[in-house]
């Protein structure tokens, strides 16, 4: 495509999307209301979407709320990232059987679902791009991630509102989806109208769009979408000053503020588990009682657990101070050296889902404002 084309799909035509994806064999997952939150789960049709629901988020607080309209995507981030599909919380890596005194190792023969993700926000697209770097672009490819990631169809949704803990504008990742999608929507509700401005990202996306009733967007409709995105960017619930952030963290390993955070930190690991880019895991070898069959499982782990840094003699990071500092410094500084990008996309999940409302934007601000050790 020479230039990005924009189309309009009316709300009435939106259910056709499900049929189009279904006939292509996708397992459709996206936002739905469950357990007092808008979570990502399997969707059977448009009625499973959080129609007319939104979320109000702040540090340690998430509340589901009714909207005045019937928006399909009128909320912000979910309690969990898309990584739960691409990088499963627990997955069997291999299994083995003892035969004639030797171990026969067998390949996993499970075929993962071909996912279609509905409603991926710009921050989460950026997160998927980061996990692509981690899992696919190093010396070794993660076959489990690759098998799920490569066929995945991504329908992005531009954010028509900013959440209370959002700061994608600071991280340069949103609120507009610019790449990494098959189709990207902007949902527009005004007066009696309810439609989606659609941008096509791939040929595959174009084929799906062709199965939905659509038309070329007018300049007016495109301008309307622009205005919505501009307003979203101006209403971020949080901001993070990223100037010299890497240097700031590298120069402040011994800043007394780490103690203040440690006094509040539960080391519960929630921030890392909800983070869309955190990728640490642990291995568990299990046997059956006879010892004739063994399995190796990979499970999500976190740098906040003691086992995570356990080596001969004990855990390297004994204190909450050491663990929080490790996490924040990796996320915002050493990640850049390791992967050429920040590990933070500004989705705000670690702020909302911290049970005691620790806010990394506030912690960075505190470090910056009270920096005492300057190049000492």
């Amino acid at each position, binding site marked *: 495509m020479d230039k990005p084309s924009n189309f309009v799909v009316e709300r009435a035509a939106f259910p056709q999307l499900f049929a189009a994806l279904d006939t292509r064999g996708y397992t459709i997952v996206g936002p739905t209301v469950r357990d007092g939150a808008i979570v990502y789960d399997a969707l059977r049709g448009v009625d499973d979407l959080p129609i007319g629901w939104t979320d109000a988020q702040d540090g340690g607080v998430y509340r589901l709320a009714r909207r005045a309209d019937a928006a399909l995507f009128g909320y912000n981030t979910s309690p969990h990232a898309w990584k739960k599909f691409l990088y499963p*919380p627990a997955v069997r890596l291999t299994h083995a059987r003892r035969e004639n005194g030797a171990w026969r190792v067998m390949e996993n023969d499970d075929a993962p679902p071909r996912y279609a993700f509905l409603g991926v926000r710009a921050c989460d697209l950026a997160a998927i791009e980061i996990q692509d770097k981690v899992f696919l672009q190093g010396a070794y490819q993660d076959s489990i991630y690759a098998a799920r990631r490569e066929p995945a169809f991504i329908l992005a949704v531009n954010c028509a509102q900013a959440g209370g803990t959002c700061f994608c504008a600071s991280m340069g990742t949103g609120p507009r989806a610019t790449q990494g999608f098959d189709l990207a929507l902007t949902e527009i509700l005004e007066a009696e109208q309810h439609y989606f401005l659609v941008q096509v990202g791939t040929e595959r996306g174009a084929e799906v769009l062709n199965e939905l009733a659509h038309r070329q967007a007018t300049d007016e409709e495109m301008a309307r979408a622009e205005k919505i995105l501009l307003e979203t960017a101006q209403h971020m619930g949080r901001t993070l000053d990223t100037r010299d952030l890497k240097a700031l963290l590298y120069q402040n390993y011994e800043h007394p503020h780490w103690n203040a955070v440690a006094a509040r930190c539960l080391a519960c690991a929630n921030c890392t588990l909800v983070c869309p880019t955190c990728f640490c895991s642990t291995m568990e070898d299990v046997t059956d*009682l006879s010892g004739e069959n063994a399995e190796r499982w990979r499970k999500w782990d976190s740098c906040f657990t003691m*086992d995570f840094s356990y080596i001969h003699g004990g855990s390297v990071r004994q204190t909450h101070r050491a663990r929080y500092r490790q996490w924040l410094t990796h996320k915002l500084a050493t990640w850049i050296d390791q992967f050429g990008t920040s590990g933070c996309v500004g989705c705000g999940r670690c702020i909302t889902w911290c049970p005691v409302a620790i806010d990394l934007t506030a912690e960075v601000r505190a470090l910056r404002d009270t920096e005492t050790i300057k190049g000492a």
Partner: protein
Amino acid sequence: MAKQRKPKVAVWKFSSCDGCQLSLLDCEDELLTVAGAVEIANFPEASRAVVKGPYDISLVEGSITTPHDVERIQEVRRESDFLITIGACATAGGIQALRNFSNVQEFISIVYATPAYISTLATSTPIRSHVRVDFELHGCPINKYQLLEVINALLNGRKPNIPAHSVCVECKRRGLACVLVTHGTPCLGPVTHAGCGALCPAYQRGCYGCFGPMETPNTTALAAQWKHLGVSEQDLMRAFRGFNAFAEPFRQESEKHG
């Protein structure tokens, strides 16, 4: 593999409700396999037959509450190669450790018609306070799969997969939405030892701390958040004074409130 003698397993009961040893009977599907892999030498809930010691593995349920218990646990330790405590009573003193915060003589005079017949200690204490313990399995009651895992690991000479991190890790792996954050329900999950698979949060309830303190619990920070949610000092004290009231981090936190 060379055919070896089956390991002899004994189950011992101290002050407890029997719920934890019943978890072993509750292993229905796996019970016959377990029975095939080990020799059950003493298991009061399953059989009166007692095989003489020594024992390869002793599973100890219950806390130490009487002078007789104090002697008996020494005997169990002497006869056991590997001693595993099972459940909140054996690892933390159990609900009966609430006596540790009061005067047990008063209870005796109120409850029993002839207090003179009662020989009891002033405290309910975990097995660890009396003898060396090789492994502690948490929970009120324990998770039967964790019990199987420990026996399995011992039989196969590997490390048991019993993580000591928070319940939150299990909650997030299950894909649950945090009850504390989504509806302000007080939850002990962030300071509680994993093992239940986030059972209560899966039913939209806060964690009651059945598995006791996690590896590095910051109870003070969680208590401050509970207060912020409107929980009274007395309720905070009660929350930490449950089945694991005498586990040190919970005991200390409970004494700051109410």
